[in-house]
Structures are given as structure tokens and as C-alpha cells.
């Protein structure tokens, strides 16, 4: 039985005049029905491009150079764009960051919702489509949905727009939803509502959910599994609780301690020195080595691969995890 979605050794490159730039290297993860996975990293870590690649939506000059994306056993990198159109927005949906930008300002909510449905089911009548749209609006708890269908995006608040976008993503009953920073543009109280809503829907609809975000705290409160990305690589993955309570990779450790909540009483925050390398300029060996407080000679020459950490469910890409020199201080 194959997984709902399996990403295997994904390599995404951007072809530039000066040569190819590698955006992600060897990214692998799987997701099952009803599972929630958090893909975390700072800007430029390759998390969004990974998300886009799953629905084959990387625009030129980006392309998938190697690896497989298996959706229920079908390799999405190998099928025609016709077949892909049948999956994208239908069986795999995506929610984007900015609810102000993703809705068309000159079309009513009803038109935008039914458009998706009719595109995927040309035989469906307008009436049927409207009924499904109503049902989905109810599902995302929008009050008086009949009236709302006739309204334009500017008549809604940010939180309401994001609910509508979720309703549009749900309209074809997808099996996977990918959300790229779905609450970054929203206030905390609205964020809490939207995250509750998404969690609830994943459970009731048995969907797979990939949450792409920079916010570790959001991932901690929503997902079961986590993959931490740095400079286009997954540096650590495992169960969310394990990774956050007991991080293994120095980058994950640093990231958690950089948060006021992770600093645990000390006045100064832990800062990871320097910044993430640009993709054209990734150092040899481990990409994190110039910023790593535990750097060893081998880190500067060899690139570590993801290995199982002894006695844990977590995988980390760090030589220290292998050598067992790395004790938790």
C-alpha cells in the first residue's frame, strides 16, 4: 500500500544564465491520510518551492531536476500537464499566504468558488455547484453564506477571506491540502481560529495537510510531524513533540533557543551567528557549518545525510548525531 504522498530525493533547480542554482537537494518525506506535517524554515530555506513542486507549479526557470513525487503511487513529475491539471486544485489543493492577493477582486465569491468546481466537472450544473459552494462556506463557519456568495472580496475582512480561500481549496474534496504560510498575514486571534478550523477539517475530511511556515510555535500547536529545512535541505525530521522538546540538529536547537519562549528565563536570546547562505553560495560540506557552534573538520568537507538518531524516532542530518559526541546540555 503506497503512501498518500511520497516525496523522494527531490532536487529543484533554477536555470539561470550563469548556470543552474539548486534550490532544494534530496528532500524526502511522506504523508498519510489525516496526517499533518509542518515544513519549517526561514526565508530562502526552500520550503515554499517544495510545496509548489508538489502541485507542479514551479514556474520557469525553476524545474524538478531529480527525484519523485508520488501521489498514491503516481509520479507527478512524469505525467502530462493535462493529467496534472486534473489533480492540481482538485485532489491536491493549495492555500496561499496573502488572503488579499489570492482572491480576484472583480468577481463575486460565488463565481470564484463555482469556477473551480465547474472547471473540474464540466458536466455539473450551476445550481449544483452553488449548492456545494454553500455547503463549504458553512463548513468554514461563515455566517449567512447565501448572502455572502453574492459579495465581492473587499466586503470581507482578512480572516473571512482566508476562510473563503480554505472553502475554495476544499470545494473539490481534495485529499491533500498544502498551506503556504496561511496565517502569517493575520492577527493572533484570527490565526488561532483559522488553525483550529484547519485541524478540525483535516480530522473530519481525513485529509493530508502540509503546513509551510516559519513559525515553530504554530507548527507545535497544529501538526504531528515536522521537517526542518535549511538551505534547501531537510536537516531534521520526526514527530513534532520530539523535535521541539529534544532537538538534535544544531540549527533546530539554535532556532528554538532564538525564540523568547525557548530562551527559558535567560535575558539574552540565543542568536545563531551570521545568516543563511544564498543559494548560489552554499558552503562545502554541511550547509550549516559556518554558523554551527559545534563545527568539526568533517563538516567542512563532507555533506551529512539524514540518519536515524539513536534511541529516537527523529532523523537528523548531522555528523554529531552519528558520533554521539553531541550530548544535550
Amino acid at each position, binding site marked *: 500500500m503506497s503512501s498518500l504522498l511520497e516525496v523522494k530525493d527531490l532536487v529543484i533547480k533554477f536555470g539561470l544564465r550563469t548556470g543552474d542554482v539548486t534550490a532544494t537537494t534530496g528532500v524526502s518525506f511522506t504523508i498519510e491520510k489525516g496526517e499533518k506535517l509542518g515544513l519549517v524554515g526561514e526565508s530562502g530555506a526552500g520550503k515554499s518551492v517544495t510545496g509548489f513542486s508538489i502541485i507542479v507549479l514551479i514556474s520557469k526557470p525553476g524545474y524538478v531536476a531529480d527525484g519523485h513525487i508520488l501521489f498514491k503511487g503516481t509520479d507527478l513529475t512524469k505525467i502530462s500537464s493535462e493529467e496534472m491539471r486534473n489533480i492540481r486544485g482538485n485532489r491536491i489543493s493549495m492555500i496561499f499566504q496573502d488572503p488579499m492577493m489570492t482572491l480576484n477582486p472583480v468577481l463575486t465569491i460565488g463565481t470564484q468558488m463555482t469556477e473551480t468546481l465547474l472547471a473540474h466537472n464540466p458536466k455539473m450544473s450551476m445550481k449544483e455547484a452553488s449548492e456545494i459552494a454553500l455547503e463549504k462556506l458553512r463548513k468554514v463557519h461563515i455566517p449567512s453564506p447565501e448572502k455572502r456568495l453574492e459579495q465581492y472580496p473587499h466586503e470581507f475582512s482578512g480572516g473571512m477571506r482566508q476562510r473563503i480561500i480554505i472553502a475554495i481549496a476544499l470545494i473539490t474534496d481534495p485529499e491533500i491540502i498544502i498551506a503556504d504560510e496561511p496565517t502569517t498575514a493575520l492577527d*493572533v486571534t484570527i490565526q*488561532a481560529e483559522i488553525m483550529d478550523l484547519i485541524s478540525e477539517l483535516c480530522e473530519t475530511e481525513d485529509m493530508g495537510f502540509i503546513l509551510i511556515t516559519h513559525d515553530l510555535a504554530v507548527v507545535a*500547536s497544529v501538526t504531528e510531524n515536522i521537517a526542518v529545512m535549511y538551505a534547501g535541505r531537510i536537516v531534521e525530521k520526526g514527530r513534532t513533540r520530539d523535535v521541539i522538546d529534544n532537538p538534535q540538529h544544531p540549527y533546530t536547537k539554535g532556532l*528554538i533557543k532564538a525564540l523568547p519562549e*525557548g530562551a527559558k528565563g535567560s535575558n*539574552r536570546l540565543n542568536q545563531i551567528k551570521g*545568516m543563511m547562505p544564498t543559494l548560489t553560495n552554499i558552503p562545502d560540506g554541511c550547509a550549516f557549518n559556518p554558523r554551527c557552534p559545534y563545527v568539526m573538520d568533517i563538516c567542512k568537507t563532507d555533506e551529512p545525510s539524514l540518519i536515524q538518531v539513536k534511541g529516537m524516532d527523529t532523523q537528523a542530518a548531522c555528523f554529531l548525531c552519528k558520533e554521539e559526541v553531541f550530548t544535550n546540555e
Partner: protein
Amino acid sequence: MSNNEQSLLSVRNLYKRFDISGGLLDQIKFSGGKFSREITLVKALNNVSLEIKQGETFSVVGESGCGKSTLGRTIMGLYPPNSGEIYFNGDRLDQLSPKEMLPYRSRMQMVFQDPYASLNPRKTIKQTLEEPLKYHNPQMNAGELRDRVEEVLLQVGSDPKWVTRMPHEFSGGQRQRISIARALVVDPEFIVADEPISALDVSIQAQILNLLMDAQEQRNLTYLFVAHDLSVVEHISTNVAVMYLGTVCELADTKLLFEDPKHPYTMALLSAIPRLDGKKSERLKLTGEVPTPINLPTGCVFHGRCPYANSRCIAEIPELKTHSDGRKIACHAVEEERIR
């Protein structure tokens, strides 16, 4: 006011309204067979009072549109207030002419949110940093200017060799360091930091927060920190004011506020923070939306979303009252002990 000596900055009964009704033709409305002129006002600040003591970090938190940035900008004199008083070191600022305000400008500085927008893209770092210095200290010669810029760049952790570069050559974190350097270069006493880290990545946020805390220690600075990220506010501030729709609803010592919030809005806001430990606090869930500041609700601005609201809350505006533990709360329910 007796505590005038200790507080560096005090704001009393501040009101700020923005007229968004446009030109005369936009204001004319036709209804009931008659023309009338209507003026639409955004009531951004409503009776805000606070005291900021020397050397402290005073944070203002709230959701977007609650008036926290307007408060910072009004204090800086970037917006003239409609009524109310602003005192800096005992001197009244809100009625000063731009010329009279000048000496205070170098004592009060501001760091803005977006380091991509707040640095002039056509000026080198040297020009950006020297400009405020030259302006406030016309007597300074080139050598002194250079030394000051170098000193301040070193303090913010940038390389003084970079002075000939343009802003586009820097990352967001480096730009924010330069914005902070620009604020520090005139040796201010008070800095308004308007969401200084929200445009930055987590590991860079930590660097900038540490930098701000170090600068405060070295220069005995006072901060007014405007933010929406509550965990950051909890970490750096001494006192916190929670704002909702242009009104301060709770003002307290940070520890007190985060451990035991009293105002229903503060409770809701705090319980909405996602936590690293993944534990969900028994959340006070809010229903409804933030009303628009154009038509403020009657009575308590929060009554429409408050689970404890009664008829008094709808009719009467609650006052910000000081409680025995020193915190100030504007809530009828707390006052009547209907909450806990």
C-alpha cells in the same frame, strides 16, 4: 501630577482622528431629498493615557488596526493629536511648532518596521547615517562625523567598512541594524520601535532583539515598543499596554499581565498565542470581528465580542482604573467582580 518627575514620557487623554472623507464633493451625500455634508472620521486613538518611566521598555500590543502604531507616531510628533497632552521630561510637546520641536527630535528617535522601505535606496549608508548628525550638530567636522558613524556602526554589529555601500547590498537583518544605527547616531534618550523585528526571520529577530537590549543597557535608553508578537513583548518589556480599537484596555507590569490577565480581551489575546509546548490554554474564544474604528461601538468598545458584556457595558464607557496591585484595567465586569 506627582509622578511627573520619574516618568520620561507621559501621554494624557490623547485623541487622534483621521478624516477619510476626501474632498468636498466626496463629502456631499444625498438622502431624503436633501443634500448634506458628511465627514467620515477614523477614530484611531480614544482617550489614551500612559506613563513611561526612564530606562524602561514599555510595550504596546494589540491586533492590526488597534491604533498602536498611530500612538507611537503621534508621540513622535509625526501626527498632530486632536486633543490630549504629551509630555517629554516634563515639557509639553503636542503644541510645539516644528522649529520648537527640533531639539526634542534628536532626543526621541524612531525605528520603523520595514527595513526595505525605511532606508533611502539612493543614499549610501554613510549619507544615511551622517544626515541626522549634520542636521542636529551643524558644527561637526568631517572627521567627527566619520568617527561617530563608525562608533555607532560598530555598536550595532555592522562593519564600518560598509559605509560606502547602498541599502540594496544588505540583507533585511543588516538593514535593520543600519536603521537602528541611524536612530542611535544622534544619541537619543527615547526610541519608539514600531514592529522592528516583524519583517525578519526568527534567528535574525533574536540578533536584533539582543542588539536593542544591549543598546538600552549601554545608553540607558527608554523604549516604546510597538508589537503584535506577544512572546517577544513578554521577553523584553517591563510594562505592557494592551490596546483594542484605539483604547487601552489593560496596562500592567509584564509579569502580572502575562501570568494573570484580567481584562477579557487580554485573556483572549494571550490564549490565542501558539505555544512551543503545544499546550492549548483553555482559550477564551472570541466571536465576531473587530468593529471598524469609523463607527465605534457605544460603551465599552469590546462589548460586542465580550462574553461577560451586560447592559452597562453597552451603555457606559469603562474608565481605566488603577487596582491595588498597580495594574490599570478598563472593564466594568472586573470592577463589579463579575469575572472570577
